[in-house]
């Protein structure tokens, strides 16, 4: 990285806990009077502080699209605020070799009493655009916002959708060398979101540097090539999105989320009848928790049958980011598996087809159980996790659509469409 556009060195931000650092005259006066007394030996009572960021360093090259990811409270918004110059760091520094604009919110400074037209200029100026710049792009902004008819109406009369569209239209026409975007894209209706995401992607591919802050790995995987994972205020991982996703998925335990081997730990979960020995995800790239949405992958589990009293069946429970169970699968549907197995070590493998899972993070409960009578020998919650991403090459269900794509699963089902005949013009016949 010979020519970084952002250089962050040892950034730290300390917050004083409690009354948001606000104090009163009385405290200041009493503090001032008490100060000489304190010098007479007594220790100054230390205020409780909290480091929201600690020793954060990174370089970002010109034209890179970098995702900043982390759980709530990891320091993402603090970093964002420092980069946007909203608050100063407590120590360290950032060097920016280009002008920066940040979108922590769309419509910052919008005034409800003013017309859409006035607000475009106001918001543009607040975001750092010159009047001439806004005027030059005015028509484009208006067209993008789809609120032409209401330009001279005070924005307080706008629907929330119109408001957001207008606000985003201004933001989308910012032309900084560095664009910092918070998760503001979760606004507006679906078709408008698509437009915004498309606009963002064109910004990134247009040689501009984009920093995208989110706790949603799917969105980051789609938009960025590199990710920085923040955890407890420090950089926990920095590198290609897939690798960082692996660390993010691994959580705080540090264990590889794609493979767990209980034999190495010396203690296998289970009952007197069966024990779970290991479980692993086998994708295209060994050891990577990132799964290309189009490719199939396998989940494998090793287990030990200790008695031949019950039929013991391995099963897997898949949960998405919202914690909803997407599906459960097991081998008990086969006649031969409904009988007790002879004691020994077994390996079961199942294959999840490509174009079936939706994008996002999934965690897997790994269990071995008996269905008749109902016995759970081992049930390890969230033992494995992986990240399904769509590289957006157009041959997934997504096609070239870049917007939000809901659904717990995204199966590519067989479709047929055939031409039935000539155009039937219903409108004309209706008028007649």
């Amino acid at each position, binding site marked *: 990285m010979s*020519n*970084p556009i952002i250089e962050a060195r040892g950034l730290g931000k300390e*917050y004083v806990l409690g009354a*948001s*650092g*606000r*104090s*009163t*005259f009385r405290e*200041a006066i009493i503090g001032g009077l008490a100060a000489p007394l304190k010098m007479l030996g007594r220790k100054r009572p230390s205020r409780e502080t909290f480091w929201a960021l600690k020793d954060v360093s990174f370089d970002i090259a010109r034209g890179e699209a970098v995702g900043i990811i982390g759980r709530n409270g990891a320091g993402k918004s603090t970093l964002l*605020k*420092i*980069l*946007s*110059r*909203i*608050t*100063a*760091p*407590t*120590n*360290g*520094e*950032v*060097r*920016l*070799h*280009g*002008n*920066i604009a*940040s979108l*922590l*919110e769309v419509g*910052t*400074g919008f*005034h409800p*009493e*003013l017309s859409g037209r*006035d607000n475009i*200029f*106001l918001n543009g*100026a*607040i*975001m*750092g655009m*010159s*009047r001439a710049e806004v005027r030059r792009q005015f028509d484009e902004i208006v067209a993008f916002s789809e609120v032409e008819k209401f330009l001279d109406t005070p924005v307080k009369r706008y629907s929330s959708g119109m408001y957001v569209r207008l606000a985003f239209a201004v933001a989308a026409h910012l032309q900084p060398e560095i664009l910092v975007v918070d998760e503001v894209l979760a606004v507006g209706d679906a078709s408008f979101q698509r437009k915004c995401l498309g606009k963002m992607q064109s910004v990134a591919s247009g040689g501009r540097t984009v920093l995208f802050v989110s706790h949603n790995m799917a969105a980051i995987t789609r938009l960025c090539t590199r990710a920085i994972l923040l955890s407890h205020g420090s950089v926990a991982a920095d590198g290609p999105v897939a690798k960082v996703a692996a660390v993010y998925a691994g959580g705080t335990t540090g264990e590889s989320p794609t493979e767990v081997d209980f034999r190495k730990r010396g203690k296998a979960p289970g009952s007197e009848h069966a024990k779970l020995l290991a479980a692993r995800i086998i994708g295209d790239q060994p050891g990577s928790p990132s799964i290309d949405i189009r490719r199939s992958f396998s989940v494998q589990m090793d287990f030990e049958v200790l008695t031949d009293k019950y039929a013991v069946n391995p099963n897997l429970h898949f949960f998405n980011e919202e914690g909803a169970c997407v599906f459960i699968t097991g081998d008990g549907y086969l006649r031969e598996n409904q009988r007790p197995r002879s004691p020994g070590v077994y390996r079961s493998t199942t294959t999840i087809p490509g174009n079936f899972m939706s994008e996002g993070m999934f965690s897997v409960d790994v269990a071995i159980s008996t269905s008749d009578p109902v016995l759970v020998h081992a049930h390890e919650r969230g033992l494995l996790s992986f990240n399904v991403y769509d590289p957006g090459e157009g041959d997934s269900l997504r096609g070239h659509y870049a917007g939000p794509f809901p659904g717990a699963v995204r199966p590519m089902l067989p479709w047929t469409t055939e031409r039935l005949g000539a155009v039937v013009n219903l409108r004309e016949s209706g008028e007649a």
Partner: protein
Amino acid sequence: MTASNTHERVLVIRPTTALSWQDFRDAWDYRELLWILALRDVRVRYKQASLGVAWALLQPLTQMLVFTVLFNKLAGIKADAAVPYSVFCFAGLTVWGLFANGLSHSSESLIGSANLVTKVYFPRVLIPLAAIVTAVVDAGITSVLLVALMIWKHVPFHASIVFAIPIAAVAALCAAALGLWMSALNLRYRDVRYALPFFIQMLVYATPVFYSASLLPERYRVWLTLNPMAAVVDGFRAALFGTPIPFARLGVAAAIALVVGALGFVRFRQLEQTFADRI
């Protein structure tokens, strides 16, 4: 990364508290925003109120009527220039209003702009300054009424009236100087918000707004030098009514305002870095 691009601007974000060229460069880059923010405030204020612009006139006009009845008719205070007391008083209130409104608007301005301060960067100093600009606009509207009043009361116009504008600028400067301090301190000590209106109210008595400085015994008059607004109000009226303008005292007033303002700017810059954390 040395001389590859000499035109490149490097922006350094660090926990500095020292004033640097970057601050001035920033303020200059964002100069358009000052007008846009001021324009927003003016528009919104007059758009929201059904009486609109009339509010800018109603306040000094009522004050003038009350003062005329109380101090002129009842207490027998006279104007020192050869003008009716009502005109004398209204002239004082016009320039005083510029200061008082500017100061109170600007001291509240940062708190009122929390949504901006926590969401986007621009030199924060524009916020209190924009509040001053709106007070200037109000004073401009009041001045139109003042001129009308002078015509109505047959007060002669003098060439010295041209000095009224730079003198009013000193009033705006005083308001800006204190406003920088108060807006920043208001975030730290919310007491400011309660103390300041009281302070402004007291100051109107310590300033020859509804009385003439010549009413005061000579030995007390020295103390008025410490109050830059005394010189401003005196000077403003002198410029309007053609009496000798106290240039020396105005110079002192402007100097005091400049020093207070410069210190205020430095302090403001220091506090600015944590505004978002305190708001």
